[in-house]
């Protein structure tokens, strides 16, 4: 089925406590190559029929208005899954 992917990340300037907790766990496990972890969200929207400019635009709109909260998050990607 045609699918549109939406990716949402916490705003870069904000503390991401969940990511920080994972980074702490990685350090404890000896994975010292990684200095930081940030956790975001990936949504997969299954589309009725083919993906068009209109469905992409609609996905962009709901990404900004519902799937993310623009006060604390950024929509980092909206694209058709290949």
């Amino acid at each position, binding site marked *: 089925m045609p699918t549109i992917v939406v990716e949402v990340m*916490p705003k870069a300037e*904000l*503390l991401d*406590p*969940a990511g*920080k*907790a994972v980074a702490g766990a990685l350090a404890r496990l000896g994975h010292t190559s990684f200095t930081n972890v940030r956790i975001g969200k990936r949504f997969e929207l299954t589309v009725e029929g083919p993906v068009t400019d209109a469905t992409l635009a609609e996905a962009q709109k709901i990404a900004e208005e*519902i*799937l993310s*909260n623009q*006060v*604390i998050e950024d929509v980092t990607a909206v694209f058709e899954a290949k």
Partner: protein
Amino acid sequence: MRIGVITFPGSLDDRDASRAISLAGAEPVALWHGEHDLHNVDAIVLPGGFSYGDYLRCGAIASHSPIMAEVIDAANKGLPVLGICNGFQMLVEAHLLPGGLIRNDHGKFVRRDQVIRVENNTSAWTTDFAAGEEIVIPLKNGEGGYIASDETLKQLEGDGLVAFRYMGVNPNGSMNDIAGLTNARGNVVGLMPHPEHAVEPGFGPDTATRMQSGTDGLAIFQSILSATVLS
């Protein structure tokens, strides 16, 4: 006076809020998230809990539930609305109050009897407090860190819209120690701590005189009666 308490899937403190309303001397009215009917109530409480399991973001799905269309419309016309904890999260998701609430900076759920200071005693829900009064009510949340842009914070502080501020410790990393806000009109108030859990002797926070005797939260529900009588 009839005060509606809306139950969402995952609400936990709706019955506590109803009991607080009764103890304050008003009539609680149970409202359901799936309706488009406020049943002519004189004020509304959005209770605490974990509506929709906190999926998507805390309060986000609830803020789009059917009854919220009526709540947002009524709030914009001046109907008093109080959001407690998850209800506060719904108010920011519905853009009735500015900013956002994110996971506590220390990453842990926190439950404590919290001292907060009443910074604005002119809102519909705070008139029975003295300005600057310090009260103790329970706090219990995992995602109570208040954040807003520098510009929004400046405006909130400049316009006196910070309703409550954490004292002693900042329990969740909230910017400017903000525990609760009011809108400019004073009818919409949201806060993370739970006034409805400090309304009856024997079931509230400890005080200097007796265990569990704290009832500082009751004045929030009494304020709305005073405010409505005045207006």
